[in-house]
Every structure is written in structure tokens, then in C-alpha cells.
């Protein structure tokens, strides 16, 4: 959590190597969200708005406690409320704090074409640099969690920064600070994983939740925001948490095989044309004047 961990690890749309990569020892951060002790008070939603300087926007009522249907470009943190009829536990009111997951292999960064618009720090934080963002929205297509949101006024994309400005100063993210039940924790990935697994084991052994577990999806290389779930087998019930998130295959296909095939074809085509010219040269028109005899265009 020191400033040393704000060393840059990966940069979007960037030609060449990443300056300073790998110069200090790994120390990554992690946010732990224990959905089993969340009471849905939304203090984290308020703290997020306050710290990041956004005002309250219009809320909507849809037969639940949820503030609005989805996160927004100026509303990065939203508790999703879901009623779920569980075969073993009966009716459950599931509450999940939804925000950027800060993937170890970020789909947004993979898809982004703008140099340095998305940066991944060595501590795991994936941060958008809006001054470099060109507003293409490819990050929205690359993200498996539906997190980046386009601002029609700024014409750029915004999302949770994991309070990079606080973390770089040795503080915890604003949402963590505001949580009254202690369901939110912040620390190193190693410590948070340990804490999460211990809590899951406690739920299994003492609270009759045999399927309790930690959500740290390997499909995106693990995340720097992890959940403790009552039932790990039904992540979708927690407001659409994907069971096996990964960067969309079409984005991978586009950014790797298609790109290399395309580059090869374009360079090969240019070389081929040059070779053709050297071998065969221009077509000679017998008896034709090399240059037109008149001046100026025709009707």
C-alpha cells in the first residue's frame, strides 16, 4: 500500500516496453467483500460518491432496496439486492457490493487502443487515465463484468479506481473506511485471501453453509476484489456475478491472431507489390502517348 506499489505494471495501447516494470518486489492490494455480513446500508455508495466528488443522481424504485438498476459513469459502487429461493436455506436476500474487480488480466486494458488510457499498477489496481481516454468504448466490450461506463457529457469512460489516490497515500479506499459491519476489508492479496478462506471455512463448519466459498475467478487471472459467498456454486444469484468470467474470445481473437495475421498480410502485400514491380514493371501500351496531349479535365 506504499507509494512504491504505484509502480506501473501494464499500459494500454502502448508501443514498446513499460517504463520501470519489475523494478521492485511484488506487493499487491486487495479488497475483500464478505457478502454474508453485509447489511445493505449503502454507506459505501455514499462514501464513494463523496470521496470521488460526484453528486447524488436520480434513484429509482424497482421493488427492492437497490439504489438504481446499474452502476453509472458517476456511480461506481452499487449494492445489488437479490431475493433468491435457495433449496437448502429458503428465501435469501443476497446483497453484493458491485464495482470494478481490478482483474489481474484486465479485459478493458487488453481492448483499449489509446496509449496509456488504462494503466495497471504493480499493486494490482487498474486505473483509467481520462486525459488519455479517447472515448471509443472498447473497454466496455473487453470487460466481463460490465463495469466501464461511458459519460455522454465528457465523452470518456469512467469506473472505480480502487481509490488509487488514497491507496497511494497509505489510506484504505473510501468504501472500506465507511463500512459499519466490517464486511469490507483491505490489505495485501495474500492476507485477504487468507481472511476470506478462513471466513468461508467458518461458514461451512459453524453456520450450515457447506457451499460457502471465495470468489476469486481464475479466468481473469484472479481479481484484486474478492468476495465471500454463502454459496459459491450460484454466483449469478448475486446480481449477475459471472460464474466463469474471462476476456471475451472475440476480443482475444481480434487482439492476437487477427492482429498478427493482418500485420503479416499488410507487410507481405507491400513487399509483394514491390517485388512485382521489380520483376514485371509497368504495362506498356504500344503506340500510346506517355502523357495526355491536352491540358485540364474533361466534361
Amino acid at each position, binding site marked *: 500500500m506504499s507509494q512504491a506499489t504505484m509502480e506501473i505494471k501494464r499500459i494500454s*495501447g*502502448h*508501443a514498446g516496453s513499460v517504463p520501470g516494470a519489475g523494478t521492485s518486489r511484488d506487493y499487491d492490494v486487495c479488497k475483500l467483500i464478505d457478502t454474508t455480513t453485509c447489511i445493505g446500508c449503502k454507506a459505501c455508495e455514499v462514501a464513494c460518491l463523496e470521496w470521488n466528488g460526484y453528486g447524488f443522481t436520480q434513484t429509482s424504485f424497482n421493488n427492492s432496496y437497490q439504489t438504481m438498476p*446499474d452502476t453509472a459513469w458517476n456511480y461506481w459502487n452499487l449494492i445489488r439486492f437479490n431475493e433468491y429461493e435457495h433449496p437448502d436455506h429458503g428465501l435469501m436476500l443476497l446483497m453484493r457490493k458491485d464495482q470494478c474487480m481490478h482483474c489481474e488480466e484486465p479485459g478493458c486494458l487488453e*481492448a483499449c*487502443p*489509446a*496509449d496509456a488510457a488504462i494503466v495497471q499498477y504493480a499493486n494490482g489496481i487498474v486505473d483509467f487515465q481520462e486525459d*488519455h*481516454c*479517447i*472515448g*471509443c*468504448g*472498447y473497454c*466496455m*466490450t473487453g470487460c466481463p463484468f*460490465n463495469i466501464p*461506463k*461511458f459519460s*455522454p457529457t465528457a*465523452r470518456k469512460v469512467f469506473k472505480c479506481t480502487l481509490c488509487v489516490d488514497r491507496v497511494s497515500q497509505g489510506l484504505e479506499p473510501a468504501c472500506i473506511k465507511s463500512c459499519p459491519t466490517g464486511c469490507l476489508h483491505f490489505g495485501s492479496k495474500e492476507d485477504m485471501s487468507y481472511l476470506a478462506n478462513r471466513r468461508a471455512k467458518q461458514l461451512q463448519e459453524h453456520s450450515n453453509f457447506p457451499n460457502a466459498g471465495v470468489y476469486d475467478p481464475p479466468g481473469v487471472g484472479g481479481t484484486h476484489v474478492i468476495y465471500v459467498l454463502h454459496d459459491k456454486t450460484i454466483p449469478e444469484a448475486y446480481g449477475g456475478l459471472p460464474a466463469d468470467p474471462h476476456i*471475451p*474470445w*472475440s*476480443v482475444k*481473437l*481480434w487482439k492476437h491472431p*487477427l*492482429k498478427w495475421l*493482418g*500485420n503479416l*498480410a*499488410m507487410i507481405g*502485400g*507491400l513487399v509483394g*507489390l514491390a517485388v*512485382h*514491380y521489380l520483376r*514485371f*514493371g*509497368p*504495362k*506498356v*501500351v*504500344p*503506340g*500510346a*502517348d*506517355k*502523357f*495526355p*496531349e*491536352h491540358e*485540364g*479535365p*474533361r*466534361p
Partner: protein
Amino acid sequence: MSRDESQILPDGRLLRYTYVERLIHWLAAISYVYLLLTGLAFWSPWLYWMAVMLGGGTISRELHPWAGLIFFVAVLAMWRMWAFEMNVTDNDKQWFSQVKHYISNEDEKTPPQDRFNAGQKSLFWGFVVCGILLLLSGLVLWFPNYIPWNLRWVRYLAVLIHPAAALITIGLFLIHLYMGLAIEEGALHSIVGGDVSQSWAKEFHRLWYDRVLRSTPSASAGANPPARK
């Protein structure tokens, strides 16, 4: 379908492209080159400097879709003007089977061609089909925030189709540029000034040449070009 307005000009040269045809060609050409440069900038970080040269990534992202609309309108106009003459015939299939002679500049061994040869027809239909694909996928990429999450597969398709179709047009464009600038003397002038010499027409577009001469018999005297003024 507009009809072919090719004719023999008073000085004996042949009018190959009318003013409107040339105008639309250059509208397509200029918009395409802008699309190509900004598109390549988004394609690879190593080419991002192209967007920087053209006013920056944000401006390029804002203008690229509008240039795309202009390009599509130009392609649509070309389709209206030329689709009839671009019909692929048996003659064209024969031309393709002997394309190696065309490549090695032994044009006399290829079947005589009408106003557009089979290669030009391929270019035309390639750009029409890819133009439609680029427009449809481009609209999705223009407004990704309007594609709801449960229809995200549309975005997944668009990010693949758009560059794939663009790559095909780049191949066609490179060959087109090479033919027009380096291979066929007089081809560039034909799309700027509009006219070609009779020997050029006879060499590359024999059927068209015969047709033009037949349709304007009174002017066939021009077959012997008058002396320069």
C-alpha cells in the same frame, strides 16, 4: 442504373469517366484514406502516431465514424452508377483463370475486357460488401453504450468484423493504388481528367473500345487523332 456515357472526344481521345464519376471516386478516396490512417492508429499501438498527427486520438475517434458515413454514401453512389456494368460474366471467369498472364504483363493472352475488367469488378464488389459490413459493425462501435449488456455479443461480433473487413479493403486498396499509380500508364489521368487514349482503351478494355466506337460512328474519324494545336 445510369448508362455508360463513354464517348469519343473531339480530339479523338475517349471519355472514360464523367465528371460525376470522378467526383464520387475522389470523395470515396479521400474519406477512405482518412479512415485508413485513423483506423490503423486504433489497430496497433505502433501506428497510434497517425492519430496524433491527425489531431489526436479523441478527434480521430470522433471523426472516424463521420468519415465512414461519407465513404459509405460514396460507395452507395458508385453502386448506383456502376453496379450494372460490374456484373460478373463468363468472360470474367475466363479472365481469372488466365490471371497469371495479366500479372506478368502478357495482356494479349487474356480475354478482351469491357469497360471494367474482372479485377476491377472484384475491387468494386469487395468494397460494396465490405462497405456494408464496415457500416453495420461501425455503427455498433460508434455507440457501444447503447448496446445493452444482454446484447453484448453484438459488440463482440463488431470488434471482429470491423477490422477483418477493413483488412480485406486494405488488400484491395493496395492493389488498386499500385495498378493506378505504377502499372497502368494513363490510369491515374483517366480518373483525374476523365479521358484515355484510343490505344490505351484498345489495349486494356477492347470490348469497351469497340462499343464506344460503334455507338458514335460519326466521330470515328477521330480514330486518327488530329495534330496538336
